[in-house]
């Protein structure tokens, strides 16, 4: 516990120092974004100062879920058709290792300390638990059909997994690795996101066309975000990725083939604006300073850059084929 606090403080100090240095060097923060390209089997590296592609890394087959390790040293990318998660060294930008996931890993979540990784394996209805330091598989948790969305509560005690054909959000106790509750949501739940104050979990339903707001204590759906875009059929509105600002005031929801990001007022659960981005938008990531939100647009093979404060799309960057997930260096 003490050691953990110390490392946390150390990290905060280091981040503070680094950003201080960056501030001194340039007016804008430069961050590095990594984008998984599902069809090209590559990861595109983007510099957020120049908004240019600086490198394309060859990875395994069908890269989808992608995330930085908590220490910012490595990028993990699930390569589903190779049944593993590859590890990219952020310094050398090359694949250096792989993790023992179950078959067809798609999305994953890590605990706050960055020690345990939970992986949704679409092919065999399980969530695999991996020790990140030992790179060893600790066990499996049986969930519903086609597990996909994964998120962990801010206190690290609850893991949420969504299963696409069972249409549920499974609440898993991370200590006992047992399911404690199952909450039925609309069809094909793809993604789950906690509010930073842990008071709500938002779950997107791609085919149902809604986002369910769940009370994580009562395990009940307490509200729904619905979408309506003039001139677009209901069927084209397919919510997937969700991003929430740190103050929990604004949520951004990717609407797939509707080619739009919905800006949602979290308190009222109402859409305030639709931002037109590239085609079939699925996932997104904020820059750590929350100035920008980057979205992956699968069919137009590009990434849209949204100015968060202005709520405007300011840039489009061409990446590989069928960009899927995105992560930005902490």
């Amino acid at each position, binding site marked *: 516990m003490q050691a953990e606090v110390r490392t946390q403080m150390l990290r905060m100090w280091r981040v503070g120092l680094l950003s201080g240095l960056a501030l001194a060097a340039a007016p804008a923060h430069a961050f590095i974004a990594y984008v998984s390209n599902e069809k090209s089997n590559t990861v595109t590296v983007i510099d957020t100062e120049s908004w240019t592609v600086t490198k394309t890394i060859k990875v395994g087959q069908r890269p989808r879920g992608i995330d930085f390790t908590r220490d910012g040293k490595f990028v993990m990318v699930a390569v589903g058709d190779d049944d593993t998660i590859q590890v990219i060294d952020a310094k050398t930008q090359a694949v250096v290792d792989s993790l023992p996931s179950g078959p067809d890993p798609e999305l994953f979540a890590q605990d706050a300390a960055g020690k345990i990784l939970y992986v949704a394996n679409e*092919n065999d209805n399980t969530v695999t638990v991996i020790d990140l330091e030992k790179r060893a598989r600790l066990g499996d948790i049986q969930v*519903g059909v086609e597990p996909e969305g994964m998120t962990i509560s801010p206190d690290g005690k609850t893991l949420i997994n969504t*299963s696409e054909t069972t249409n549920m959000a*499974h609440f898993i106790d991370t200590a006992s690795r047992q399911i404690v509750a*199952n909450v039925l949501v609309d*069809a094909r739940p793809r993604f789950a996101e906690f509010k930073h104050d842990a008071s709500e979990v938002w779950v997107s339903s791609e*085919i149902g066309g809604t986002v369910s707001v769940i009370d994580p204590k009562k395990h009940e759906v307490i509200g729904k975000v619905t979408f309506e875009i003039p001139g677009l059929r209901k069927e084209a509105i397919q919510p997937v990725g969700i991003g929430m600002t740190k103050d929990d005031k604004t949520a951004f929801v990717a609407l797939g083939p509707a080619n739009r990001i919905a800006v949602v007022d979290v308190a009222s659960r109402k859409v305030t604006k639709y931002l037109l981005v590239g085609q079939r938008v699925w996932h997104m990531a904020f820059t750590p300073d929350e100035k920008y939100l980057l979205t992956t647009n699968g069919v137009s093979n590009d990434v849209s850059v949204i100015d968060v404060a202005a709520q405007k799309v300011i840039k489009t960057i061409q990446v590989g084929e069928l960009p899927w997930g995105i992560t930005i260096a902490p």
Partner: protein
Amino acid sequence: MIRWLVGLIGLGLAATSALAAEPALIGVGYLGLAGTRSTLSLVEQPAENDGVAGARLAIEDNNTTGKFLGQRFALEERRIKEGEDVVQAAAALAEKNSFIITDLPADALLKVSDALRDRGTLLFNAGAIDERLREADCRANVIHTAPTRAMLADALGQYLVWKKWSRWLLVVGSHDEDKLFADALRRTAARFGAKIVQEKTFEDKGGARRTDSGVTLIQRQMPVFTQGAPAYDVLVAADESEVFGAYLPYRTWDPRPVAGSAGLVPRSWDAAQDQWGAIQMQNRFVKLNSRRMTALDMQAWTAARMIGEATSRTNSGDVKKVTDFIKGPDFSVAAFKGTRLTLRDWNWQLRQPILLVDGRMVVSVSPQEGFLHQISELDTLGYDRPESKCKLK
């Protein structure tokens, strides 16, 4: 007295916990004909369990979900041999199963539907593509997961028109179902502005589908049969009976693509379909059944999944509640086709995208871009509400 009371409470507790532990059993029947039909291509030869294998996978999927809800699904299969009474078999199946998935010819399905009407059994037509089951002969207790001939023909026609292959040479078989498919194709051509430049009939004169040196003969027959046609872009074949369609590709007199019953074929599903998360289901299917998934498997899977979807949403296995929910305005089902599938409330036909496949790949998916509709683009496929002759009863 106190001991007696304690005993009573104890009993009561035991009874409740036993009740909670015992999942609700939901019976699903599968009714089809025994035996399989013969196809020209050996690789297209249906398996003995064509259809029911899809239902079996959906029952597994439903049970994975059901274990979180205290619901258990069981599948009972019944195959009718020649000379057996289909109504009797259906009634026996309905004893334990409130839901029955059928793969029956139209007349047999109508008999079963009428016989089970008062019992409240809900039927799912997974096999028959006949228009009349959704039109003049529609029934309130039958949900159709199989697409219709008009839906299939429109799906193909939209693509051919998009491709600007609008001059069709139509070749029709001599059996009734071939003629029905040809009717659907003519309607499609008229709707979407294609022109049938000539129609030819291919007479079924009998003969074996399997021969030792058939190829030599076919290679001489087919060019001659298609010789002398007016200028056309694509040959469209209506051969549901599997007599000649598959012989046409690469053998036409003029070098033209073939579509319809061979070449580019419209289907509700295909083993090559891997978009929209389908790969996971294809893998589950192969693992369970040791073969690839057909359109009929998918139509039966969808039927059994619709039952599971409704039982989980209503948290009930009661046929009345489940039927009301399926027929209600909030019902939709996800079936790996990129969009939610809903029911046409005027005839209980499932709206669905149709794949266009060539036996190896999914070439396209209809409805095509630009075919617009005020309610759902899926209603550009097949007979729409204003055209329907169905009066549900």
